[in-house]
């Protein structure tokens, strides 16, 4: 239980086509992350899966059954929103129990599930409080708890961490990962943050402007991006893109990740001047203005002392250099 299939789903708001034909299969128990820049249609796709938005065409199947005309409450899904969306007039306990109550679940069963979920999310001390009396992190945990008690076939998360501060984000991310491992449930998670995508996903779906650019495991996307968009989106700092003509290459664009460049003070492929250096302790980011390649970012592990203005030579790792054609696709 808990598989999802999307067949050629399109969605238009008036004349604006937001989803331009999405095909996707999600297996039972998978953690799938939709990632892409803001406004690319991730939330719209999630809302179509949830039934909060009708697709213009195409089919959504949950466990093999077409749910295109099933209301959200009957689809066996639960959703966690970016803004928590807790009911302000209900206590934490009633927030979690409302969905089950609406579905006519016996009170004892509701009680039992709330107990399990609140223990899982360390929410027991707050069960009688109202959302206004909780911190942001606690509110988001309540929202996750509200999803857990429904025991859905499919969990849907829409940027659940973007309203939390950085430290809390890491904690909650961990909590969601553990939750997935414990429940073995199918989860679909939307984010614009590629770090969240890489750390959580079994399978990442990269979306751009209403289309799927690539589907794959985090390492597949990192090691074998299908095109320039995915290559630039996955990985931080961003991949360097260099005009092929400048390097005397036949490919339109040459891509090399900052961590796949080495520097040397004496010799190397590209001679450059240090523009700026970022010292992060664990690694150092150097920005070099190279004679052939233009401005490139180099990531060096550990501490590396380089003053702006110094001359350095950068050399790309030939085995980890990507070549893109005029259409942005990787050339083999």
């Amino acid at each position, binding site marked *: 239980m808990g598989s999802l299939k999307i067949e050629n789903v399109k969605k238009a708001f008036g004349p604006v086509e937001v989803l331009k034909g999405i095909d996707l299969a999600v297996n039972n128990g998978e953690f799938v992350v939709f990632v892409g820049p803001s406004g690319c249609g991730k939330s719209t796709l999630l*809302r179509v899966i*949830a039934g*909060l938005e009708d697709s213009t065409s195409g089919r959504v199947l949950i466990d093999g059954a077409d749910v295109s005309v099933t*209301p*959200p*409450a*009957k689809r066996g*899904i*639960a*959703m966690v*929103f*970016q*803004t*928590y*969306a*807790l*009911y*302000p*007039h209900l206590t934490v306990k009633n927030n979690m129990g*409302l*969905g089950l109550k*609406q*579905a006519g679940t016996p009170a004892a069963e509701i009680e039992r599930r709330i107990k399990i979920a609140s223990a899982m999310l360390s929410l027991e001390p707050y069960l009688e409080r109202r959302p*206004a009396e909780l911190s942001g992190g606690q509110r988001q945990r309540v929202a996750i708890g*509200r999803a857990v008690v429904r025991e859905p076939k499919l969990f849907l998360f*829409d940027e659940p961490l973007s309203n939390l501060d950085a430290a809390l984000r890491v904690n909650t991310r961990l909590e969601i990962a553990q939750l997935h491992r414990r429940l073995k449930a199918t989860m679909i998670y939307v984010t614009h943050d590629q770090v969240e995508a890489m750390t959580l996903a079994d399978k990442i779906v990269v979306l751009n402007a209403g289309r799927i650019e690539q589907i794959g495991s985090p390492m597949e996307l990192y090691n074998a991006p299908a095109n320039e968009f995915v290559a630039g989106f996955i990985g931080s700092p961003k991949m360097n893109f260099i005009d092929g003509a400048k390097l005397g290459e036949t490919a339109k664009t040459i891509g090399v990740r900052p961590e796949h460049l080495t520097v040397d003070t004496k010799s190397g492929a590209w001679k450059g001047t240090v523009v700026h250096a970022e010292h992060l302790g664990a690694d150092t980011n150097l920005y070099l203005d190279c004679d052939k390649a233009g401005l490139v970012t180099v990531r060096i592990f550990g501490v590396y002392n380089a003053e702006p203005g110094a001359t350095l030579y950068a050399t790309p790792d030939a085995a980890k250099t990507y070549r893109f054609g005029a259409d942005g696709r990787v050339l083999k």
Partner: protein
Amino acid sequence: MSTATHSLPRTIGAHAVLLTYTAIALFPVILVILNSFKSRAGIFGAPLTPPTPKTFDLIGYTTVIGQGDFIHYFQNSLVVTVASLFFVLLFGAMAAFALSEYRFRGNTMMGLYLALGIMIPIRLGTVAILQLMVATGLVNTLTALILVYTAQGLPLAIFILSEFMKQVSDDLKNAGRIDGLSEYTIFFRLVLPLVRPSMATVAVFTMIPIWNDLWFPLILAPSEETKTVTLGAQLFLGQFVTNWNAILAALSLAILPVLILYVIFSRQLIRGITSGAVK
């Protein structure tokens, strides 16, 4: 204590302006109330002075209360105002929710059509309304007034409320839908409490013109049974003699109910504003 935003001269200046405005705005009201406690001679002899032991007289109030019907007029006014207010808020909020929440063909046109009433005074339609009421046999009933005032109040209510309803979080409504709440429950339990401050604003704006209206009671419901306070007070306004004591007393009394309603709503207003401030 002189900071960038609080300087003493500026504070004094702002307060001076506000106090002057308050004095100007309240002057006629206070004058009415003061004079309502004076004898006829007192009112005309020294209209601007407060009642002294010599001029103090409750004759106005005894006349008004003694004229048994007046309590009844009050009742009529209150029924009409409260009922109209109820319907304006209910239907206004529901229409506003539909306009702001659902995408349907003609949504924008419908919004414009409903807002048109703000610009076109309902009194232009008096003749047609009267014919309608005669035809339906509603002349000289409070129902007639309630219907007209509901229609009169709706455009502004819909206009203001739909702006506020657009700001209610979509996520919250969607969370309700996923939990299986009906659209009515979402509207009454989730959305309405969040737009309570704007409901209070609309209530205040709607209530005062209804309470004060003389036009429609005079035309649609002038019978003894259905007279409202404003119409009842005309009783003392004779062609030859005017009972000023009674008129001033009636007007002073007429302020009370609106004042009470206003206090109730403004409480809501302040509570709503402060509770909405924290996310």
